[in-house]
C-alpha cells in the first residue's frame, strides 16, 4: 500500500552561500556510548549467528544523507493510537494506558515524529501467519498503533498488556511481555527499533534479546514504569515509557567518525 502523496515544504534558507565547496554546516548526531546498543553478533541469540556481519562496520563521517530523514505527516497515518477499539468488541486482557515522551539526549522534545507500535495479544499470540503459538487469536485485537508525537514530544497509546510467549531460541525459551516500538526522530541517524518491557517481569533475566544490551542502566531504561497518575480509575493501568534518541553535536567541527 503506497503512502499518499504529501507536499514537503522546502526548509527555510538560513545560510548565506559561502565559498564553494560548501562544508556541511549542520552538526551531526552524537555517537552512542559503547554498550548501549547490543552488538550485531550475540551468540545467546541464536539467529544472530547467521545474520550478523563478520567484518567491522566502516566508520564514516555524517553527511547531509545522515542528518536528514523522512518527514511523516498526519495524513500518512492509517491506524489510530487506541488499540482497544480496532475490533467489533473489546479485546481480552488488562487494559493499559501507555504514555511517555520522545526526547533527545539534551532533554529536548522530539516533535511530530512517527511512532509505530505492534504487539501480541493478552494470550501471547500475534495476529500474523508466521506465529504458530497455540494460544488463541483474539478477534477483537489487531495489535498495531501509529501516531505523531505532539509539540512536547508526548505520545499516548491505549492497549492491552501483551502476554509472554514461547520461542525456539533454546529449550523452554519464553519472551517477556513486550511492545515493539519503531521511531524515526529527525534524521536517518536517529532511526530506532526497540522494545518496551514491563516492570517486575520474571522472564527478563533469561531473555537473550533484552540481555543483548550490555549496559545495565540501558536495560533498565527499556522497562516502563507503573504510573498511578496516568492510571484511569475503573479502566486502565498507566505505564510510562520515555524514549531518548541521539542528540545533536554542538558544532559541525565535532562531525567526526
Amino acid at each position, binding site marked *: 500500500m503506497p503512502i499518499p502523496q504529501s507536499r514537503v515544504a522546502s526548509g527555510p534558507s*538560513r545560510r548565506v552561500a559561502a565559498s564553494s565547496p560548501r562544508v556541511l554546516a549542520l552538526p551531526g548526531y552524537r555517537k552512542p556510548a559503547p554498550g548501549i546498543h547490543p552488538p550485531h553478533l550475540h551468540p545467546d541469540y541464536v539467529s544472530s549467528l547467521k545474520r550478523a556481519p563478520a567484518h567491522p562496520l566502516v566508520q564514516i563521517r555524517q553527511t547531509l544523507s545522515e542528518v536528514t530523514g523522512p518527514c511523516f505527516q498526519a495524513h500518512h497515518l492509517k491506524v489510530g493510537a487506541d488499540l482497544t477499539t480496532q475490533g467489533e468488541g473489546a479485546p481480552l486482557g488488562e487494559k493499559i494506558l501507555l504514555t511517555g515522551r520522545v526526547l533527545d539526549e539534551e532533554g529536548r522534545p522530539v516533535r511530530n515524529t512517527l511512532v509505530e507500535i505492534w504487539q501480541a495479544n493478552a494470550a501471547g499470540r500475534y495476529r500474523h501467519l508466521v506465529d504458530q503459538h497455540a494460544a488463541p487469536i483474539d478477534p477483537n485485537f489487531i495489535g498495531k498503533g501509529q501516531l505523531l508525537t505532539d509539540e512536547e514530544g508526548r505520545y499516548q497509546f491505549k492497549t492491552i498488556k501483551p502476554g509472554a510467549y514461547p520461542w525456539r531460541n533454546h529449550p523452554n525459551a519464553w519472551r517477556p511481555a513486550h511492545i515493539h516500538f519503531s521511531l524515526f526522530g529527525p534524521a536517518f541517524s536517529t532511526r530506532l527499533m526497540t522494545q518496551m518491557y514491563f516492570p517486575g517481569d520474571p522472564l527478563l533475566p533469561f531473555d537473550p534479546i533484552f540481555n543483548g544490551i550490555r549496559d545495565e542502566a540501558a536495560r533498565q531504561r527499556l522497562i516502563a514504569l507503573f504510573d498511578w497518575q496516568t492510571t484511569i480509575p475503573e479502566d486502565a493501568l498507566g505505564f510510562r515509557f520515555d524514549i531518548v534518541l541521539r542528540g545533536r553535536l554542538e558544532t559541525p567541527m565535532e562531525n567526526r567518525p
Partner: protein
Amino acid sequence: MSMAPAAGQLLGLAASQTVGPFFQIGCEDLYQTDLTVPGLAGTVITISGRILDADQLPVPDALVELWQANCLGKYAHPDDDQDKTVDPGFMGFGRCPTNAEGAFQFRTIKPGSVPSSTGTPQAPHINVSIFMRGLLNRLVTRIYFSDDKRNSVDEVLSLVDPGRRSTLFAEPDPGCPGAYRWDVILRGARETVFFDF
C-alpha cells in the same frame, strides 16, 4: 515533570532491540515500494535484490528501508538548505519487506549528488537500513550505481577497502534499461559493507 538533564549531563539513550519476525503488523501500513509520484523529475529506476545469510540462504523476514534525495540531490527535509528545489510529493522514503525468496524491489528515481562532510560532491547513493529477526540493531549501508563515474571521487567509498567496494554497487541489467540489481550478503565471503556514524 522536567526531563532536562543536569548541566553537562545527557539523558541515557534508548537501546535498540530486534524488529522481530512480526513487524508486518506494525509496519505494513507504511510499506512503500514505489517512491515515485506523478510528475517527478529524474530517471526512473528499479532496484531489485535479495538478502542472503551466512549460508547464502535467503532471509524471508527482513525489512528494508530507503532514504534518498531527489534527482537534484535535495532531501525533502527542513535541514537540507541547499539552494535546490524539492519535488512536491516526493518524500524519499521507501520500505519493503523481503518475500519468501529473500527478495525486495523498489521503483524510484536515481538520486542526484549531495555534498559530503567536507562539501565535495558525493556520488549518487541511496541510504539503506536493514532490520530483521536475529539482528538486535539495524544494519546501515548505501546503494551506489556501478555505472556512475563519480564513484571514483566519493568520500565514503574511499574509506572502503577497494576489494569490498563492489558490494555497494547496484549493477545495471544490460537487457532492461533502468533496472539495477543489488544483493545484500549479511556474513561471510562477499559480505556487504555496513556503516556506522
